[in-house]
């Protein structure tokens, strides 16, 4: 933590905490490298950007407010299907598709937040799991609408701004996903440095103290959950638009579990934890499944156990600890 000196006023201290770190600028510049270095992997890069944003949305509720969810893919799936259906039956313009997906996912998130905010710990995990399974089965059984296990076919996404077509190499897809990721990240960053962000950290740090300082934690949680659902919906829409299809996989338990693993790997409760975790997870999956497609989860398991055992705050948490020790002589 910062050293208290006489020149630091409380306000300037808080202002400094919200300032951009040079490493952050390096990080975002590095996200542009795939265009130059890995032009054949831009489709993967696009998927990573989408998944990173999904992990960020889970981080808002898990890392900041301490709400563990095993059903976050429900909102991803709602976003994926609503964007797909919107482009198929109404209009293929991508940004309006994003908005529709965000609105529907947010609506569902707001509705379920009244249940979510009443529970904690194991009951909460079970409820999120149940809601996630429920959403999956609804999508599965509504074959006439979603295509069921065949997936939603016939999605046609128009060029971005009417100019940039989604090409085979994924150049437009990655630029689009990365752009949306960056904009939503800026919003999330703003939220984290806001009074509301502080209240969420308060909930995570001590649920019992919050009412004693006059805080309505349930109202805070409803708001955070709705915002997280909106972002997850945007992620689902991005995936549909960049792949021109939506499948049951987008709303599956597997996706909920994977995103939780990514967040824990990267480090929950830090804005970049989900982003780094998603990148590691997706690249590892790509590489390991090239070696032995059936067994790649073995390596994720090894990685997960190792990280949780030795770096309880994730990879970023471990790095932060190392640099802090390094600075302190």
């Amino acid at each position, binding site marked *: 933590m910062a050293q208290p000196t006489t020149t630091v006023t409380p306000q300037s201290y808080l202002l400094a905490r919200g300032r951009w770190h040079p490493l952050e600028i390096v990080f975002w510049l590095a996200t542009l490298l795939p265009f130059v270095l890995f032009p054949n992997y831009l489709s993967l890069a696009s998927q990573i950007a989408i998944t990173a944003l999904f992990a960020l949305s889970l981080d808002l509720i898990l890392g900041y407010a301490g709400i563990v969810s095993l059903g976050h893919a429900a909102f991803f799936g709602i976003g994926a299907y609503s964007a797909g259906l919107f482009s198929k039956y109404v209009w293929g313009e991508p940004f309006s598709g994003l908005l529709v997906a965000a609105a529907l996912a947010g609506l569902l998130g707001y509705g379920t937040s009244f249940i979510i905010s009443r529970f904690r710990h194991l009951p909460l995990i079970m409820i999120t799991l149940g809601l996630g399974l429920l959403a999956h089965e609804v999508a599965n059984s509504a074959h006439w609408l979603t295509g069921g296990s065949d997936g939603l076919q016939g999605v046609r996404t128009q060029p971005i701004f009417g100019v940039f077509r989604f090409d085979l190499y994924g150049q437009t897809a990655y630029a689009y996903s990365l752009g949306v990721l960056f904009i939503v990240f800026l919003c999330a960053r703003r939220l984290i440095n806001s009074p509301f*962000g502080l209240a969420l950290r308060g909930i995570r740090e001590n649920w019992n103290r919050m009412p004693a300082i006059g805080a309505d934690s349930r109202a805070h949680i409803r708001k955070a959950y709705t915002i997280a659902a909106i972002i997850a919906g945007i992620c689902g829409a991005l995936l549909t638009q960049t792949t021109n299809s939506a499948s049951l996989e987008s709303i599956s338990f597997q996706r909920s579990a994977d995103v939780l693993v990514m967040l824990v790997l990267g480090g929950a409760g830090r804005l970049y934890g989900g982003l780094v975790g998603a990148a590691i997870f997706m690249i590892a999956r790509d590489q390991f499944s090239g070696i032995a497609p059936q067994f790649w989860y073995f390596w994720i398991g090894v990685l997960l156990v190792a990280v949780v055992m030795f770096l309880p705050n994730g990879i970023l948490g471990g790095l932060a600890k190392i640099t802090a020790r390094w600075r302190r002589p």
Partner: protein
Amino acid sequence: MTTHSGGTPALSTRHLSKSFGSLVVARDIELNLPVGARYALIGPNGAGKTTLINLMTGMQTPNAGQILLGGEDITALEPQHRVRRGLARTFQINTLFAGLNPLEAVTLAVAERRGFAGKFWQNIADEKDAIEEAYEILVKLRLGDVCYQTTRELPYGRQRLLEIALALATKPKVLLLDEPAAGVPQDESGDIFEVVAGLSDDLTLLFIEHDMHVVFRFASHIIVMVGGAVFTEGSPAEIAADPGVREVYLGKRHHG
């Protein structure tokens, strides 16, 4: 009833009762705290002192009876709404935001009171007045020099002071202190009570404390609880002279 001058009591209870099965933890408790009072709540371990604070603040629900804050019935209100009306408490066991620093924690409490803690589209650092108010509270409680240190790294005595700072940030009319110096070495507990004694005269105080020197030094009125009921109450001199209290404390040797 109280011997203090008239006017509505800052906090009172009417026939307040609570039991778990056959175990009675609060039995028909009738109390009146006049505005600006400095009340001590004493009694052996298990007398129901913390339970009484939990009932008053809404952290436990009574089986019967009422709680009145400034004459208004608050029995049905949730804890956070009681806090917003001016009833704050501290905890015997530190109940702090371990990963936040004191500045963040107290600023959060101020933000909740001022009603902007739900704002997510502006930087916390732009709330200059609230931050300054939080910092003033911290300085008043001798926490100014450690306000950027993570709470879990603070010395224990400082953490006890932060307990009080968080409660003060809610601008209470009535403050209930559950053993504010619990676990603090005896030579330091005086410091904590100096801070408590220095709080505004408008603030109505009720504190639980085991150290009789501290009680007699800082309380204007003492309530003795035994077995979930009010055993007796009176001025420090009256309590000191009460043979029944002596028996509770010295004869039965329950003292914790």
